[in-house]
């Protein structure tokens, strides 16, 4: 059993998710309806997408505190450009492009002059948040353009199950990331760098290039998270997602990825993001105050890290 858990790091979180779903299905009448389960997935999409980028960075034993701020800037760029007459496809590309550009700067500073990612992204968080507020001129901007919102508003029914385009996109992104991490040389390099950068360098892996590539991919993911966010709430607000960075780290940790790098999986993160949304929805429907929901999430995070520590300690 233990080796199975070690080999498939997403298994523990998946069991926790299943347990939570079962618990709320039994204890409330309203949780286990098809449209509620569909909503839970929709509610986890933006944080889930941010958490995908976060997972890649954390696997290299980094951390990204600026991810949500970058996505917020992305939403503002997309919304304001379209309101100013730019075509929606171009605005979307610029929003995503700026997210990649910022990630490139972060990655460049982290790899170029070997500063700790925590410090660099902390600085970036402050800069990008301020930049978003300056650019927004203290306003929020409604978005009506179909291209910018259709990830959330276009829905298809499969029997009783409601599926948005955004869900499909998130699933594709997760599968691509899973494939790249587990089936390609690049993926092996990411894990190797996160485990022991010096050993990876000695075995011929180009450490800096690998880490930089991770930040670039993460930036792309944050840009897409901005697009996802406009699908959920068609309104670009400079005050949105203030806790998005920490929420994404929560999803990563609940998904069983080690904050020390080199261990974990994106599929675990997908499960982690769902756990948070299931808890929020299920506890709400069970009539539990939202502050106690935060307590429950916090306890789970600590338990998840303890499990990681425990299994790692026994493993070595």
């Amino acid at each position: 059993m233990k080796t199975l858990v070690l080999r498939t790091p997403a298994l523990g979180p998946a069991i926790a998710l299943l347990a939570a779903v079962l618990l709320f299905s039994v204890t409330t009448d309203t949780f286990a309806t098809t449209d509620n389960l569909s909503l839970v997935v929709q509610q986890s999409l933006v944080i889930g997408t941010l958490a995908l980028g976060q997972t890649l960075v954390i696997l290299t034993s980094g951390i990204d505190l600026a991810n949500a701020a970058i996505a917020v800037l992305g939403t503002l760029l997309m919304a304001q450009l379209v309101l100013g007459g730019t075509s929606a496809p171009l605005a979307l590309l610029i929003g995503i492009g700026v997210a990649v550009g910022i990630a490139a700067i972060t990655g460049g500073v982290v790899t170029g002059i070997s500063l700790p990612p925590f410090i660099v992204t902390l600085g970036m968080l402050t800069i990008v948040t301020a930049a978003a507020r300056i650019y927004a001129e203290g306003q929020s901007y409604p978005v009506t353009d179909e291209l910018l919102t259709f990830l959330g508003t276009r829905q298809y029914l499969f029997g009783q199950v409601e599926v948005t385009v955004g869900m499909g996109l998130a699933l594709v992104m997760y599968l691509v990331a899973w494939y790249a991490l587990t089936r390609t040389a690049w993926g092996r390099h990411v894990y190797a760098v996160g485990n022991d950068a010096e050993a990876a360098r000695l075995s011929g892996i180009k450490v800096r290039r690998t880490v930089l590539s991770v930040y670039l991919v993460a930036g792309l993911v944050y840009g897409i998270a901005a697009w996802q966010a406009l699908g959920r709430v068609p309104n670009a607000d400079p005050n949105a997602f203030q806790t998005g960075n920490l929420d994404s780290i929560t999803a990563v940790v609940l998904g069983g990825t080690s904050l020390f790098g080199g261990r974990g999986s994106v599929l675990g993160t997908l499960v982690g993001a769902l756990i948070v949304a299931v808890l929020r929805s299920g506890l709400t429907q069970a009539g539990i105050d939202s502050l106690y929901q935060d307590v429950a999430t916090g306890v789970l995070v600590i338990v998840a890290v303890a499990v990681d520590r425990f299994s790692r300690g026994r493993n070595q």
Partner: protein
Amino acid sequence: MAGTACSSQKATDGRGNDDGKVKIGLVTKTDSNPFFVALREAAKAQAGKDGAELIALAGKFDGDNEGQVAALENLVQQGVDTILVTPSNSTGILGAIKKAREKGILVIALDTETDPKDAVDATFATDNTQAGRLQGQYVKAALGERAPQLLMLDGSPGGTVDEQRHKGFLEGLGLTETDPKVLGKEATNGDQNKAQQAMENLLQRATTVNAVYTINEPAARGGFAALQAKGLADKVVVGSIDGGCQGVRDVKDGKYALTVMQFPKKMAEDGVKAGVEFTKSGKKPSGFTNTGTTVIADKPVPGIDSKDTAWGLQNCWG
């Protein structure tokens, strides 16, 4: 499988629960701000009186549109008949409100209007432009012959209420946004610490100040502390809005000249009553209902109706 924005069938249609009990959902901006706590408690008390069940949810921070959307969705799932919501942002959550209304749920905005206003069935709120205007008019009257030299402690960038009060105040004082008599303005998010720091910084260059606008009472307290430290407390007329009990006591102590009281209890009670009425008779309220504003000040000025702090302490909230 085709079809846009359609939703699957639900076991309950929003209205009419098995046990016949009226279910009302409340979504506030946050659950820590004393104003929203007062609103929530009043709603709970009224629901208790009317035999209704109240489910209270909130965003995590001011501006958490995503959190409010999720809260609305969760309430729809729970089969509420009525949703009372104080939108963080007047346009951010319209999609979720529309979906709820499509299921036959009565949606009433409390405290903050939506844009467009008819995105909800009805609004029970303070006329915030009028509240700002009253604050400005009082400060103008209190200044008398002196020309205003104004500093402004604003709320959150982009907040609907924040902008309405700001504009109303300038109108009441008789200044425009770009008038040189506006010596400076800073966002405080309605937070006392931020407001104090903002005022300290503003006072570094604006020592001739004689009038201060504040978005709410915590901002007024922070601003007053900075003025006092500079020895300017007696020379400056500080105005505020809210009508929390601490705020009224501050006016009584002379920390600021006036506060414009709002009535969150009335918003909540009227909202719950309307929800109960809706479930029983199907009657929906409509339009904007001004829940009122009252100037609280111990020094009456000509041309402005005001109540003293003794009255204020009897009617304050929080």
